[in-house]
């Protein structure tokens, strides 16, 4: 029996299986291939790298620090390595394979030109601490992207260094905190709507604030009156997602901002859903003081199975002086300039400091800039319009079979929200999601936002064709009918994926986080 066989199919599973399993002696089934861990594949002495330089003797002064034995890690030759990761890759769903309608995640096509440009040696093979005279193009690329972000949002400045959306949130809140401190006013509370993404309250707490929740109205918006009633001298600011996680534009945004400003607070806008309004609405016109932009959402830098992201934060004039280092700006002559600690005292004295080593996610900046230059102002606007059009098409094509709690109040923005109301007893959103897997689609976001029972949040994005959407809608209609009718076979889904439902309780109760197969 080979290692794959141990890891995957076992003889006893052929009895009492799902009925759709074809038994093979290898454990593989046609193009569905099992793959062992590298630790089960590796063999002594194998290495996928040849070395041509001599090693020599370590410095005598180093002798007491030397490792007694090499790390216990297996090596694989190049053919084994390529095959291992290629086989693993085939167990993943991806945008390149089909619709990936995860609400709030904006999984759109990742243009390959972006990858090609990011790999130009002039961007990819440049050290962050090279003398400035050798990196003028890198600084200019950052400034160009920053200029696009500032112009598209109607804001004053941008902090480019945050590493992801949540890091951007932190940047914005630290700017707010620094601004209050500069005014000599300590404020302790940040207001967050209950529909907010989990990073919002987590970030506010990480920045040292107490988090208080603001309720939603029955039609899925922030309750303006409740928010106004809570404002006071202890409230540092609010965190509003706009468009919100129900897929709706917060129409009272300007009124919210005016009220918050009148009470001496600042407005943080979570820009995770900027894709719906880029080129259509400038958040700066609505009184926003800080907003992060997920380059890995709106501007299509690839999500890579969980990052890297990039979360530049656009800032109002009030918050710009506090932006973190390094800070890219232009001097009086219009020349691009990178301000680091060396010159911060003269040129950016109120900065709250550094959030991370180096300049931020340069590799993501070059991809996003390529995407933006490709689309231009008109293409970005068209992308937002098509994203909203696609979402409304999904909403109206499904609302007769899936409960759409806010569909009565008008169109949605870039994502369509449904609930599990109407499903047969014992059938849940999870069953529909797992059914989609068998149908060849990635499920939508499930059980988020929390304000809707059994939420299903569908964000098709603008890069889905109408034909692709029609196929998705047809499958989801069938699944909705099955859930409403109480079709028991749906509970067994997925049956056709590389794995069936996984036991998450066991994983958490007795965590196995590293391979220990060789520790007898």
């Amino acid at each position, binding site marked *: 029996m080979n290692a794959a066989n141990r890891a995957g199919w076992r003889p006893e599973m052929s009895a009492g299986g799902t009925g759709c399993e074809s038994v093979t002696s290898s454990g593989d089934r046609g193009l569905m291939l099992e793959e062992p861990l590298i630790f089960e594949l590796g063999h002594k002495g194998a290495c996928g*790298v040849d070395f041509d330089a001599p090693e020599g003797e370590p*410095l005598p002064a180093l002798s007491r620090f030397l490792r007694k034995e090499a790390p216990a890690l297996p090596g694989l030759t190049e053919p084994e390595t390529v095959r291992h990761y290629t086989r693993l890759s085939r167990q993943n769903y991806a945008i390149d394979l089909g619709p990936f309608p995860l609400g709030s995640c904006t999984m759109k096509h990742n243009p390959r030109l972006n990858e090609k440009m990011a790999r130009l040696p002039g961007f990819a093979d*440049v050290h962050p601490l090279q003398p400035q005279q050798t990196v003028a193009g890198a600084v200019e690329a950052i400034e160009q992207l920053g200029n696009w972000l500032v112009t598209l949002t109607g804001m004053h400045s941008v902090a480019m260094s945050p590493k992801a959306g949540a890091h951007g949130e932190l940047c914005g809140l630290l700017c707010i905190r620094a601004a209050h401190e500069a005014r000599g006013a300590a404020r302790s509370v940040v207001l967050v709507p209950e529909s907010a993404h989990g990073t919002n309250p987590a970030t506010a707490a*990480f920045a040292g604030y107490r988090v208080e929740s603001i309720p939603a109205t029955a039609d899925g918006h922030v309750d303006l009156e409740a928010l106004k009633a809570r404002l006071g001298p202890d409230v540092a600011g609010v965190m509003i997602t706009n468009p919100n996680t129900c897929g709706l534009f917060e129409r009272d945004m300007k009124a919210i901002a005016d009220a918050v400003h009148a009470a001496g607070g600042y407005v943080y806008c979570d820009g995770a859903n900027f894709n719906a309004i880029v080129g259509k609405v400038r958040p700066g016109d609505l009184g926003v003081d800080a907003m992060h932009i997920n380059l890995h959402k709106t501007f299509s830098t690839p999500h*890579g199975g969980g990052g890297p992201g990039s979360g530049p934060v656009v800032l109002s004039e009030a918050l710009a002086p506090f932006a973190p280092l390094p800070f890219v700006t232009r001097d009086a002559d219009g020349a691009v300039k990178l301000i680091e600690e060396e010159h911060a005292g003269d040129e950016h004295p109120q900065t709250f400091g550094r959030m991370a*080593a180096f300049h931020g996610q340069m590799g993501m900046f070059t991809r996003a800039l390529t995407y933006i230059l490709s689309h231009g102002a008109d293409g970005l606007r068209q992308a937002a319009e098509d994203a909203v059009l696609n979402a409304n098409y999904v909403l109206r094509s499904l609302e007769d079979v899936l409960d759409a709690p806010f569909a009565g109040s008008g169109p949605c923005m870039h994502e369509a929200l449904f609930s599990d109301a109407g499903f047969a007893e014992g059938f849940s959103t999870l069953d529909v999601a797992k059914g989609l*897997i068998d149908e060849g689609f990635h499920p939508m976001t499930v059980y988020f936002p929390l304000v809707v029972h059994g939420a299903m949040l569908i964000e098709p994005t603008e890069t889905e064709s109408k034909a692709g959407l029609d196929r998705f809608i047809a499958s989801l209609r069938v699944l909705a009918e099955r859930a409403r009718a109480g079709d028991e076979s749906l509970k067994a889904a997925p049956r056709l994926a590389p*794995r069936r439902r996984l036991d998450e309780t066991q994983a958490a109760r007795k965590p196995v986080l590293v391979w220990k197969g060789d520790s007898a």
Partner: protein
Amino acid sequence: MAMRYLPLTEADRAEMLGVIGAASVDDLFAGVPAEARLSGPVAGLPMHASEIAVERQMTALAAKNLSAGSAPFFLGAGAYRHHIPASVDHLIQRGEFLTSYTPYQPEIAQGTLQVMFEFQTQVARLFGTDVANASMYDGSTACWEAIAMAGRVTKRSRAVLSAGLHPHYVSTVKTMARFTGDTIEAAAPKLEAAADDAALISAIDGATSCVVVQYPDIMGRIPDLAAIAEAAHAAGALLVAVVTEPVALGLLEAPGNLGADIVVGEGQSLGVGLNFGGPYLGLFGCREKFLRQMPGRLCGETVDADGKRGFVLTLSTREQHIRREKATSNICTNAGLCALAFSIHMTLLGGDGLARLAGINHARAQASASRLAQVPGVRVLNDAFFNEFTVILPGDAREAVRALADRQVLGGVSLGRLYPDAEGLHCGLLVTATELTTDEDIEALALALAEVLEGVPA
């Protein structure tokens, strides 16, 4: 409009509007107050462009930079230029890795999840820790997360940083501590041949949550982790070791084996290029008993409904999407694709290959140090180093670095760039060599430096 990334045709749009029952796309934006809606494309920005046009523009920008591969190159200080095997970049561009999301649907994300599990095991074994997470943003943010975690574990809030900790890491930590109220003790670095472990140990007291030690340190020196661990533990504090150059652990003992309780690092050296500072990946390992205080994503082994082995994200009750304001960190998206690149490179090397790579790095650095020591006016500071060491120049090294760049030589990182306020350090130059450093590069640096120090114009 028609554009190469937008599949909807005008006919599609019209048909879909019909299904929706809207007269125009603008009607779909009815929820946006009219005064906030722009009537056309944002003013002052160019319109869409072809691949050819964009490629020209980006290539022109890239050409304004001096790339590391086109000059003798000796920079390090937290970002290292190593050879990346061709298969690494090929594999991370598989669309199934590149264009997938965080694996929230494990049945169709076993590829990503198994890589995470393998990555966690590789990092734990490299660091000598029981467990490791699935990555953080970078080394500097991982360093702060370790301090925050040590605070949760010890219920103390005073962190003592070694004088050899990367100054950007110190700044990052101080930024965060300013807002959380933690006390950060950071000693000023000195130009001494060996790290001052005794001074660090004497700064530990009964209120100390953790001691944070970079290994090797910012000047390339090797602190005695075992002695520091003993002192930290005697005071009830944790030892946090910070590794900015993981290749060093092919030669040097793993921090976890020397008593470190939490080991964090920058993983960029393996599989990830310089990229002008990012994206990189933070490495994070610790003792198993602290597992539930760890930040970030964790992948665990389990079984599916048929009893087959599979992997899932686990212990998410620590994380923001479940715990919201009570989470151990606000991190969400981390550095998945960089972790994949790291893991593939590590798989190609294996433990023995990493040891050989480390040996070559060390040998190249020794050759560089020997040659630079012959340049008049130059002195090598370190007794011991791995692949990075400090040389003392007769004047401000920042000027020397600029003058070297005028000669198309990227000669190192000046300590003045890193410590603008510490005048006593300004004569220091950090020099790094890796397996990519040739004898010709070393000779070019030595000759150019000699000229620069003699004041010969470029």
